[in-house]
């Protein structure tokens, strides 16, 4: 115990930072506490693919040396886990795929460089659905991850390793990636805070590509303050990512205030879908009432009629982009390569046959079909036009409302194995999150209550480059409730 009152591995970034700054604790103590806790719980959660214990302890020592000289940044000496889709120089980066099982990147992703510039302590890499394709982390080629709230349930996905790790206190914070909900949906299932920033807010350099027009890296944290601290660090223009946007990065922590007076919040009716869990709906209604009590003006019955087309549009656009992006795995430059082949093309075909798992193959097939001669107009071009309509609908809504409030998912975490044989049912678990990637706007999932001891997430969406408003609302709600402080028992 320390003067904050938590065990070291339970600390938030901002609490750990205060203790490190005042030299109440050292980074080595903090890192050892987290590593010991990983050793205690990892066999239950299976959140991690790689743990770099020795390197982490060396980095912690370096951080302590720096702090002794009076130099400390918000992330100095604080342990982080990174989703295994983000390149880490010299640390194996697998994408949870057999095809990249032994891939060691020769460079760091820009986000990792930014963390390292502050002397963050990288603990290792987290499990995920192979190539970030999935909603349960069951598509990992290595092993599934378990939800800390109920080990027989999935953690969600694709960043399920990162969210399970934070729910189980296996790191102070984690990074994930979100193409159709892959940060927010598992954050909701695991009862942690997960932000998908605006497309272009955070550099994608070194993020192994799934669907380049939808992918975005974001923080997975124990509270909203930590989320703002991480975005402060990782946001910004990068010459290595031409889709990152050269807007100034505000201090997001300066928007964390507790009154919502004057804010107009819309509740889009299409997100309270038929077949949605009624108890989840009740939890959301209660949360929205709390927002109203905090001073926000609530507008029920907002309509975004093209929401019902988002799922189909997404499952054309994302696989189409994926089928092009994944053509780089040809068995020549890096990764698994099947050498027992008749010729070069046969080598590539066999490499991909034995290297990719079923969901990745399914999406490559779907995307290749949608882009092939004779079907391009009917599927891919049509989906791009629907994308325009969905984006316009959000733009119009944000002329009237400061933010939209929805459930993060229609249900709580489902059982392992429950949806693995039915791709459509699995895809439907992202129905509330994927329209946001199509529009490119930012959204967060924060804990909003429980149904049968499983967490429920509330999604807060705002317009492009308006993460400030999201943090403001999320923080005010968090301060008025204590859901984020309730811990899973392992």
């Amino acid at each position: 115990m320390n003067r904050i009152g938590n065990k070291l591995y339970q600390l938030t970034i901002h609490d750990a930072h205060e203790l490190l700054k005042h030299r109440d604790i050292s980074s080595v103590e903090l890192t050892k506490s987290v590593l010991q806790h990983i050793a205690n719980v990892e066999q239950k959660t299976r959140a991690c693919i790689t743990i770099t214990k020795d390197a982490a302890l060396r980095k912690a020592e370096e951080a302590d040396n720096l702090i002794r000289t009076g130099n400390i940044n918000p992330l100095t000496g604080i342990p982080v886990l990174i989703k295994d889709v983000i390149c880490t120089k010299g640390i194996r980066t697998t994408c949870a795929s057999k095809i990249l099982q032994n891939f060691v990147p020769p460079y760091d992703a820009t986000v990792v460089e930014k963390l390292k510039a502050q002397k963050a302590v990288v603990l290792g890499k987290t499990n995920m659905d192979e190539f970030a394709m999935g909603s349960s982390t069951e598509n990992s080629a290595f092993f599934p991850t378990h939800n800390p709230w109920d080990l027989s349930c999935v953690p969600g996905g694709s960043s399920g390793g990162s969210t399970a790790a934070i729910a189980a206190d296996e790191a102070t914070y984690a990074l994930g990636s979100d193409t159709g909900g892959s940060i927010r949906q598992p954050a909701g299932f695991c009862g942690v805070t997960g932000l998908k920033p605006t497309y272009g807010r955070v550099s994608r350099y070194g993020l192994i590509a799934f669907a380049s027009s939808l992918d975005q890296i974001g923080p997975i944290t124990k509270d909203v303050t930590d989320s703002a601290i991480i975005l402060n660090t990782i946001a910004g223009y990068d010459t290595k990512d031409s889709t990152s946007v050269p807007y100034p990065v505000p201090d997001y922590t300066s928007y964390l205030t507790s009154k919502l007076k004057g804010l107009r919040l819309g509740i889009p009716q299409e997100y309270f879908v038929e077949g949605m869990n009624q108890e989840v709906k009740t939890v959301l209604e209660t949360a929205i009432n709390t927002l109203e009590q905090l001073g926000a003006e609530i507008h029920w019955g907002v309509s975004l009629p093209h929401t019902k087309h988002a799922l189909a549009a997404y499952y054309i656009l994302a696989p189409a982009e994926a089928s092009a992006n994944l053509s780089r795995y040809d068995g020549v430059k890096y990764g698994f390569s099947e050498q027992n082949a008749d010729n070069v093309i046969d080598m590539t075909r066999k490499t991909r046959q034995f290297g990719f798992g079923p969901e990745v193959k399914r999406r490559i097939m779907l995307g290749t079909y949608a882009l092939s001669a004779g079907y391009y107009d009917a599927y891919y071009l049509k989906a791009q036009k629907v994308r325009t309509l969905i984006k316009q609908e959000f733009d119009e809504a944000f002329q009237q409302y400061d933010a939209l409030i929805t459930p993060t998912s229609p249900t709580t975490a489902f059982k392992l194995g429950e949806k693995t044989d039915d791709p459509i049912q699995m895809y439907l678990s992202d129905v509330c999150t994927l329209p946001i990637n199509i529009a490119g706007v930012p959204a967060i999932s924060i804990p909003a209550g429980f149904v049968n001891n499983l967490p429920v997430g509330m999604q807060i969406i705002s317009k492009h480059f308006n993460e400030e408003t999201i943090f403001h609302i999320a923080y005010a709600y968090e301060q008025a409730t204590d859901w984020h402080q309730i811990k899973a028992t392992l």
Partner: protein
Amino acid sequence: MKLSHKQVKHIAWLARLGLDESEVDKFSYQLSNILKNFEVLQQLDTSGVLPTTQSASLSNVFREDKASESLSKTDVLLNAPRQKEDCFEVQAILE
């Protein structure tokens, strides 16, 4: 829209993806099912709507045509399954 085994094999060839017969069978069924769910899009009138390729409202991005530091040859070849004389090595392409 029902995808035949022949169509599945053609798509797999375009994608340079080897499939065994049981996968061809499975994808014929699963992809047909997924495409059926996409029919909802065909009911939507999109005449006069321009396609969106990305959401960041960026136009073309250029940089100065100046060479800068890049990865060393050793780093580039570090993960190569086969290499020879500082090159990636593959089976002979020309007979």
